[in-house]
């Protein structure tokens, strides 16, 4: 168990490109302290477990992944560019990058980081601060043009360690990309991950975030997306297998007139606790949002969704819809869902809905009356339930998100 001061002391000295960010992050953390149950955003989190995960030793500079669990990975087709990075974000396989994709040099990185510094302090969540304070390296990539092949970015946690990674993607004007990001947790590990995306005018991004934990692993991920006008951002976040998982997609439509689609699926079993805390803010008129979040909770697990939508005065004619649907499969599991709408603009259409239930008796009966065994019928219904979210995934992600895997051990 640690308090924030102890944890901060265990960090290496701040230096390098991220030195300034680290110092600032550590300062704010020291002020804020650890999250407590009186913080609305952390009220439901298993804070003791969080503290335990924070007390893992920090992954050090020269740690290398000696063996990869590649065997479990699906094959990578030729059209897809697979980029594997180690906990220090060094590409494991320094291949030549495909055309249109570039690694940002330090000058460009500083520029990209500066963009972020101007954002509102309230936007910086505790999850993000943890990353600011601890991440020593940042991987920046820029995308230009429409012909970049789909990218698969694989981030591996280091067993027994706390690793912290930060990735920045910049999509230039009218660029188009399909990105599959896989974050793998293994053994007793904690992965703090910060992903920043900047979509310039007219950029189109189809982004899948696949967080697959195994064993006693923890994920603390923040996704910060800034969209300029006419950009399209489509996000599918899947979380599965984390003892403690937390994903915070935070999207800002800087000028409105952009479109955002969010799909989320989280499946909890055993004693897992997985949460999604999304926030979308419209800073200009005529923004669009379509959000669907699904959760399945089995065994003793706990599934949390918190979805904030902010429509300030300037964001007239916003059209936002949010739907949270949850399946509760066991008597001992728990589901908490909380939409949060803050609306000031008056000429808007905002709707939200939330449901919690179990599988429908009639649907089960229908399948069984056609000779499908009980277990199989349940499986079929669960598959169908997940399909709503999965159908939007970019092509290369389909290999990763094998339903079989997702629904393994869910009963």
């Amino acid at each position, binding site marked *: 168990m640690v308090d924030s001061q102890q944890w901060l002391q265990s960090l290496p000295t701040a230096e390098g490109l991220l030195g300034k960010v680290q110092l600032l992050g550590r300062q704010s953390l020291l002020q804020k302290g650890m999250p407590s149950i*009186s913080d*609305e955003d952390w009220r439901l989190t298993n804070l003791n477990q969080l503290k335990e995960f924070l007390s893992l030793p920090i992954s050090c500079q020269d740690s290398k992944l000696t063996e990869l669990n590649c065997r479990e990975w699906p094959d990578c087709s030729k059209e897809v560019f697979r980029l594997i990075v180690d906990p220090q974000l060094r590409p494991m396989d320094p291949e030549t990058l495909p055309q249109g994709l570039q690694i940002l040099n330090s000058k460009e990185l500083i520029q990209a980081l500066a963009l972020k510094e101007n954002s509102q302090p309230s936007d910086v969540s505790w999850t993000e601060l943890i990353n600011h304070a601890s991440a020593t390296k940042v991987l920046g990539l820029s995308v230009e043009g429409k012909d970049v092949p789909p990218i698969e970015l694989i981030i591996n946690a280091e067993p027994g360690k706390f690793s912290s990674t930060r990735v920045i993607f910049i999509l230039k004007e009218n660029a188009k990309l399909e990105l599959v990001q896989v974050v793998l947790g293994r053994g007793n590990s904690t992965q703090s991950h910060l992903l920043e995306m900047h979509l310039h005018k007219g950029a189109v991004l189809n982004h899948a975030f696949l967080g697959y934990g195994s064993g006693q692993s923890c994920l603390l991920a923040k996704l910060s997306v800034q969209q300029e006008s006419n950009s399209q951002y489509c996000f599918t976040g899947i979380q599965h297998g984390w003892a403690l998982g937390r994903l915070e997609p935070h999207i800002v439509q800087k000028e409105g007139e952009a479109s955002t689609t969010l799909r989320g699926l989280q499946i909890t079993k055993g004693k897992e606790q997985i949460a999604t805390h999304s926030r979308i803010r419209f800073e200009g008129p005529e923004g669009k949002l379509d959000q669907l979040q699904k959760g399945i909770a089995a065994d003793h697990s706990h599934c949390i969704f918190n979805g904030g939508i902010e429509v300030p*005065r300037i964001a*007239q004619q916003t059209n936002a819809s949010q739907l949270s649907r*949850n399946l*509760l*499969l*066991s*008597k*001992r*599991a*728990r*589901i*908490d*869902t*909380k*939409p*949060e*709408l*803050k*609306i*000031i*603009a*008056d*000429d*808007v*259409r*905002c*709707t*939200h*809905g*939330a*449901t*919690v*239930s*179990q599988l429908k008796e009639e649907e089960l009966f229908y399948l069984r009356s056609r000779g499908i065994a009980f277990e199989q019928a349940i499986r079929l219904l669960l598959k169908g339930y997940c399909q709503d979210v999965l159908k939007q995934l970019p092509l290369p992600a389909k290999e990763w998100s094998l339903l079989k895997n997702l629904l393994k051990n869910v009963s």
Partner: protein
Amino acid sequence: MAENQNTSELNTQKPYKYGFVTDIETEKFSKGLNEDVIKLISRKKQEPDFLLDFRLKSFRQWKKMREPNWADLGYPKIDYQDMIYYAAPKQSDKKASLDEVDPKLLETFDKLGIPLSEQKRLSNVAVDAVFDSVSIATTYKEKLSEYGVVFCSISEAVAEYPELIKKYLGTVVPINDNFFAALNSAVFSDGSFVFIPKGVECPMDLSSYFRINSGDTGQFERTLIIAEEASSVSYLEGCTAPMFDTNTLHAAVVELIALDDASIKYSTVQNWYSGNEEGVGGIYNFVTKRGHCKGKKSKISWSQVETGSAITWKYPSCVLQGEESIGEFYSVALTNNLQKADTGTKMIHIGPKTKSTIVSKGISSGKSNNSYRGLVQMGPKALGAKNYSQCDSMLIGDQASANTYPYIRSQQPQASIEHEASTCKISEDQLFYLQSRGIDFEEAVSMLVSGFCRDVFNQLPMEFAAEADKLLALKLEGSVG
């Protein structure tokens, strides 16, 4: 009828017609709160020892508690020592007949549209009138007692039915429930008590009317309604206060208990003074209301129209314990100018096959802030429980905000929860349609608003529904366009 017309004329001239102060000699305690003040209140009311213990225990609990701030209502810190905890119009004790009551008081209630004197009484509604800290009069008491219904002020109930008070007081809202409930439990001065015996359907609507008169007195009333097996009652609550530049705290506690097959319907039209256009003055309405559906197939229904108060912060709730018990919540909350409202409900499903319905309509105009915050919780034993919630917000003008925070928690797979919500504004098309048919702008707006609130108004007793409709129109006057 003629009088009614007069009042409606008055309506259009004055934004808040209940803002007058009655000049009456009152007995007030000095400012501040400590154990002595509590003992004094208790002695003043000649309370039995158990109640004094209850008060003192609450006070000690309250001192340990911190004022909550999670709702982010942004009101200045309340100085609890700069407030008077007991104020009563001077009269030796409650009069047997209304003729002996100070005519000024009767006049006040007449002016508020609540005539208490025999010949003018509202037909078929029994009224308990509370002025500052004490109950002035309760009408139709004799008729009610024929049916065995007890309807009196809580002080009288303490004297006459101490065993009932002892058994039920603080069982639904425990003293340590929240900061304001603890404060109320320590200093509550008066309020209404209703007891409906087994199998009795209350022959008339019961109603209490709360009036704050002095500007530096907090009002802490306590209402306790007990409906025994297979009984039913409909209870109405109305409130007004004069216009002061200072903020007055109103921290009431309402407890409802429904046993097997009993049903309680609790309706509120809240019209406390809301402060002026710059947000100066007004009532802080921090109320804890909770009903306990204890028995099988019991039912508690809350309907509320919230139009007043500088800040409204309340969540009338239902604890659904009895099998197949039903909880309902129908609410219209309207905010204008700089008003803030954070209101909603909690439906705590404990027993199997419990059902709850939530319909909430929020209307925000001016620079106000209107939030729906609600909790639906399905406990592990709530087999086959069902909830349906609907919250709609209407925005008038682009400076008001409408927030929705529904909390949903389920621990029972065989329970189903449905929640839907929408936000809209008054549609230009609808306005144009009405105006083109010769209905003037303001009237068209109020028609549309009233249509928006229909689901809730339908749940209100007749007299209230009409009043609520008028009230909304009045409150919105001049805020559109």
